[in-house]
């Protein structure tokens, strides 16, 4: 075991730092859940891509930099250290892309990955349905094979930024006689398809951050099937593994937040009770635990071990850490906690935004209750 960066890794960090220092926008961008904010975040993605920093861990052939996962972690550390914008391409580049690389045909990789890297096509997810949330296998939306096409009908919900995005990756029932996990398929389709209606849902902060999708005989070319027909559950679970596990939430994001929390504490400590101190320290402590565990996980993945059910522990840990950290910030800000922007608002309401977003973290990507079931049954071996 040697927990030190190599000179090459230090050099890589310096390159990332230099580029970000010269290019990160000085002003914070408006929320990516608004039309204007989404567009500005897309412009930022294009700038990242132009510098070849958008998808560092992808192979060069598909628009990446060919970096290993340790370099990806270093990139993330510099990214959040620079307080760079949130990644509007995240659903595509972190969740769908690894699945395309694992299950896609060469033609699909060539078709979908480069425009995803370039932010010409930004992706949304179409999995959940009103009656298929935690119980995802209860999906009813169907895709009926008709010659060279699938004809999709049904209703999807909680599709993040689908109002603004270009494409979605959905899970549909392709075998009408199938039950539960069997007979589902993963299909990719443009969000401007004929017969697809997108209705925004105002989220907790009032922004149209997610949407409902209504499919009325939407015709999609059969070549947009990702992975085996009727084998979509396995493909989807690979994506869920990425979502719960490594790629979506790197430790740097939380380490930067803990750093800001300590600064917030120091600015207000004269009026705070001593009990707050342990909560502030817990934020730092948990982010360091998460960071060490992530580096250890990356080492295992790089030596060929695949991550499966243990990704559930990851998701439980980061989502509960995030909620605790932001709750602590809310308690420190007192009467100012509810201020969104303008006079007296601390950091323009950034902690408030973060707190609201953290409340979703224990719900999306499979609720933490579902994650605990997975750990208990598949890792600890308790009976179903």
């Amino acid at each position: 075991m040697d927990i030190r960066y190599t000179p090459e890794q230090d050099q890589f960090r310096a390159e990332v730092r230099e580029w970000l220092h010269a290019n990160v926008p000085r002003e914070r961008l408006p929320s990516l859940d608004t039309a204007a904010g989404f567009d500005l975040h897309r412009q930022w993605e294009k700038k990242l891509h132009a510098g070849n920093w958008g998808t560092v861990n992808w192979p060069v052939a598909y628009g990446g930099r060919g970096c290993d996962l340790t370099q990806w972690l270093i990139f993330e550390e510099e990214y959040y250290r620079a307080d760079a914008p949130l990644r509007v391409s995240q659903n595509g580049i972190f969740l769908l892309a690894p699945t395309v690389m694992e299950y896609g045909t060469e033609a699909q990789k060539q078709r979908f990955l480069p425009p995803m890297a370039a932010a010409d096509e930004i992706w949304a997810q179409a999995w959940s349905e009103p009656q298929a949330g935690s119980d995802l296998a209860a999906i009813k939306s169907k895709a009926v094979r008709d010659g060279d096409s699938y004809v999709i009908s049904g209703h999807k919900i909680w599709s993040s930024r689908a109002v603004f995005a270009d494409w979605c990756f959905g899970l549909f029932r392709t075998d009408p006689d199938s039950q539960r996990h069997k007979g589902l398929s993963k299909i990719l389709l443009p969000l401007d398809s004929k017969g697809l209606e997108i209705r925004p849902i105002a989220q907790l902060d009032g922004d149209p951050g997610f949407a409902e999708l209504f499919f009325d005989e939407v015709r999609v070319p059969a070549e947009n099937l990702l992975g085996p027909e009727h084998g979509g559950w396995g493909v989807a679970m690979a994506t869920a593994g990425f979502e719960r596990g490594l790629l979506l939430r790197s430790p740097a994001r939380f380490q930067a937040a803990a750093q800001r929390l300590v600064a917030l504490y120091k600015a207000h400590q004269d009026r705070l009770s001593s009990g707050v101190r342990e909560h502030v320290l817990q934020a730092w402590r948990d982010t360091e635990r998460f960071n060490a565990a992530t580096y250890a996980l990356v080492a295992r993945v790089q030596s060929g071990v695949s991550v499966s059910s243990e990704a559930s522990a990851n998701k439980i840990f980061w989502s509960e850490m995030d909620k605790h950290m932001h709750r602590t910030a809310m308690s420190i800000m007192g009467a100012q906690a509810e201020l969104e922007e303008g006079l007296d608002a601390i950091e323009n309401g950034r902690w408030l935004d973060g707190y609201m977003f953290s409340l979703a973290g224990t719900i999306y990507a499979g609720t933490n209750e579902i994650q605990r079931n997975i750990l208990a049954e598949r890792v600890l071996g308790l009976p179903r």
Partner: protein
Amino acid sequence: MQFQFTPDQQDLIQATHEMLLAETPIARLRALSQGADGTDISDQLAAMGLPSLLLPEAQGGLAQDFVVMAAIAESAGYVNLPEDLVEQAGLVLPRLVALQQEDLLRDALAGKVKVGLVSALRPYLEARSYDYFIVDDRLVPAAEIATTPVKTIDPLRNLVKPDVAAATLLAIEDQGAVLAAAQLLGLARRMIDMAVDYAKEREQFGQKIGQFQAVKHLLASVYTQIEFTRPLIWLAAQTGGAHVNNAKISAIDTAMQASETAIQIFGGMGYTFEVDLHLFMKRAWALCGVWGDRSYHMHRLETLILDGSMEIGPGISFR
């Protein structure tokens, strides 16, 4: 960056774990708890070279680094090893090298003399026939220091209180904290494994209690805490600093949560002397309080981070 053990280290850790498990079955602990002795496995530990794990090759040691020591301490915690291997191999014997006591080291390795370490952070020592004590990094003949027995709730250990005030060197203090944290982690994992086994067997309302989500979620929560404490302990073992304080606090919280969860799942039986859980729980209580208790390490972090100006944030964790 290699945040994992080499294959050789992995083999050594695995072989040690299996040996400790085979040589310390529950029956051995139970016999000891009832006052039976004569089951000492010091010879088996020595045969694997474990007491000299950290010693340089010139002294016949395995020259392993401290992270391997921490991994082996986790296994010692898992089996609740009665021998004081962890402190001897991890703290005492390497200190004899630093004090240039090579003859004494040779005799200690041969089992001819016994050296104990006195520290204000670990005020009670296992009762053994000591020949020397290390006090403030000096070597003192045991005859010069009076010891008084103290009574612990732990039926596996007999303790004495040395009648001397002793500060501790920071290096030893941090290493002691890392090793206590690692043992706590092993104990936590063992208590959860015991509770999982019980939940797979015990039936109520016509089904295994492990089928109830309320039981599953309790165990999954502790499992998560365990998995997010282990790599931090490795990091603390290698880099020291504030990670040590974090590791000890995290291990304390995890072990206490594990013990309270396990006793809850065992139900009324968990509250009996008959069920083995208490043997592990009591060792955990002891380790929580030594080499810096929760407040001690929390104060250190307060001083460094809240009242001081220790740099924190992304990209600097491994400095």
